[in-house]
């Protein structure tokens, strides 16, 4: 009798978990399915779920209308590039906060975090004007710089929590062995912190890939990443649901695949500092 109850409970929990998962995944699933419909089917009421005429015409049209590869290239270069530069700055910064803190370190960390709380739209106009005057609009360096600065607080914070987990006496042993500060960071600290650095970079790349405020406002064609690609399909001439869905699927597919294969790292990265 008792055994039956446990099995019943297990089945119910599994069903519930699946239901919640599907609910959260539904928008992406719907987008994916819609990308294979004709525009008419995309609009139909009641909405067709699986039984419609599957077509790949949207993907071809999206490819011919705009240069998907340029947008994809920009997304990759901006996300990875900006975050690599941010990493070069964040590692020494996090080192100093973790291993050589002063009484102001905590305040500094809090201040960095607080900059993320301010809505970007508040400084949109000044930044836009500065970029215009410096000819940085629609320029990979310009938008790359903004993406780098946006992620710097996150990178420093996450690396700081990872570095604090590293035993100080291993670094002291390196000092006794004659390592300079740079050698200590390159040969000892970084290899030991690779899992932490990897999860941090993954998160940062995903955040930059999805960043849709500054990329839309500061780029038009040359430096525009996939976020602009999707937005270009919300055109004044009407709503092209099917093509929009095809564009969206093409835009999120790379990062979805990356996220899927690195989900263990991501979860570890996001929860690491939380458990002491």
């Amino acid at each position: 009798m008792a055994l039956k109850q446990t099995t019943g409970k297990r089945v119910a929990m599994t069903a519930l978990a699946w239901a919640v998962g599907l609910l959260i995944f539904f928008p992406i699933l719907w987008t994916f399915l819609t990308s294979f419909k004709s525009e008419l089917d995309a609009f139909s009421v009641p909405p067709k779920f699986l039984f419609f005429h599957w077509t790949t015409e949207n993907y071809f049209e999206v490819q011919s209308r705009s240069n998907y590869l340029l947008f994809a290239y920009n997304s990759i270069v901006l996300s990875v590039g900006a975050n690599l530069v941010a990493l070069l700055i964040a590692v020494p910064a996090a080192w100093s906060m973790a291993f050589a803190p002063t009484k102001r370190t905590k305040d500094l960390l809090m201040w960095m975090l607080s900059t993320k709380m301010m809505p970007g739209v508040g400084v949109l106009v000044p930044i836009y004007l500065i970029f215009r005057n410096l000819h940085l609009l629609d320029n990979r360096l310009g938008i790359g710089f903004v993406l780098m600065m946006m992620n710097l607080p996150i990178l420093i914070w996450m690396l700081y929590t990872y570095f604090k987990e590293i035993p100080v006496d291993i670094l002291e042993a390196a000092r006794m062995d004659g390592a300079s500060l740079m050698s200590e960071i390159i040969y000892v600290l970084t290899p030991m912190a690779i899992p932490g650095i990897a999860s941090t970079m993954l998160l940062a790349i995903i955040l930059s890939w999805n960043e849709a405020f500054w990329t839309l406002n500061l780029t038009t064609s040359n430096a525009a990443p996939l976020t602009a690609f999707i937005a270009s399909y919300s055109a004044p001439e009407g709503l092209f649901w099917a093509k929009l869905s095809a564009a969206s699927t093409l835009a999120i597919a790379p990062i979805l695949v990356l996220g899927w294969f690195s989900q263990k790292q991501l979860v570890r990265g996001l929860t690491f500092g939380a458990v002491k």
Partner: protein
Amino acid sequence: MGSIELKQVRKDFAGVAVINGVDLKVEDGEFTVFVGPSGCGKSTLLRLVAGLEDISSGQILIDGKDVSNVGPAQRGLAMVFQSYALYPHMSVRNNIAFALKMAKQSPEMIDQKVKKAAAILNLTDYLDRKPRQLSGGQRQRVAIGRAIVREPKAFLFDEPLSNLDAALRVQMRLEIGDLHQSLKTTMIYVTHDQVEAMTMADKIVVLNKGAVAQIGSPLDLYNRPDGLFVASFIGSPTMNLVTGPSAARRGAATLGIRPEHIDLSTTAGEWPAKVRLAEHLGSDTFVYVEADGIGKMTARLEGEAQVSPGQQVFLTPQEQRLHRFDKDGNRIA
């Protein structure tokens, strides 16, 4: 050459003097042990010698040269940490070779020195393993190997045996002793375990609350402790301290007598007492008593003694082994 001298060394942390004006000299080739209770500053003192912390005032001299402002690597010392502090992502070979790599020595030289160090420490079969694949004792040897290969002027050991089990501790103690005999390099060894101090040291520095309580050879400290602190710290079980008429009769405020220098009788003696507990180790018997008018005392008898709890006994100190202390806790000659 590896003589180390400390002159009036002080270290303050947030306004509190953790090391309070220490003077001491370690001669070349000596095995010196810094010993003391937790918080006495022995590890801090070692770290000051190593250069991992800066001194607040005073001087540290190595071979007569002032190194107070010199970084840890340039002092020519090597340290073995309590937690071994091995590089987890490097093999044993690379752990030992790291210092030589930092010194930009040639690959052939590095290989030769690593092989030599590994042979001394029986690590040759483990050179390609990672630290996590080694036992505690093997990791300890790698930490020592890493220090040896630098051919330092002095070795600094920071409680290296604390993380090992009892049997391994005894074995490693002997190995470190053998190492000192063969290398003849100066060694400074920090421990809170006075048995390690007594068995390994040429010279012991007893520290208390950031200051030197006494410096001397192990038997010096055992036979002629300068004050109550050193008298109670050295020797296990702790020295018995007796105040009152017995002390006054002998011209002292406090008498000290070690448990092994007390005669126990069931018929007559100076101090009547009641047995609380007897510990039978086979080789010795420790008898814990409640002495009338004095309090708790311990006696150590050889072999197996027929003593049971509740029994009435009499303790008599061996006169020539008595230590006398004045009212300030200092030794009366």
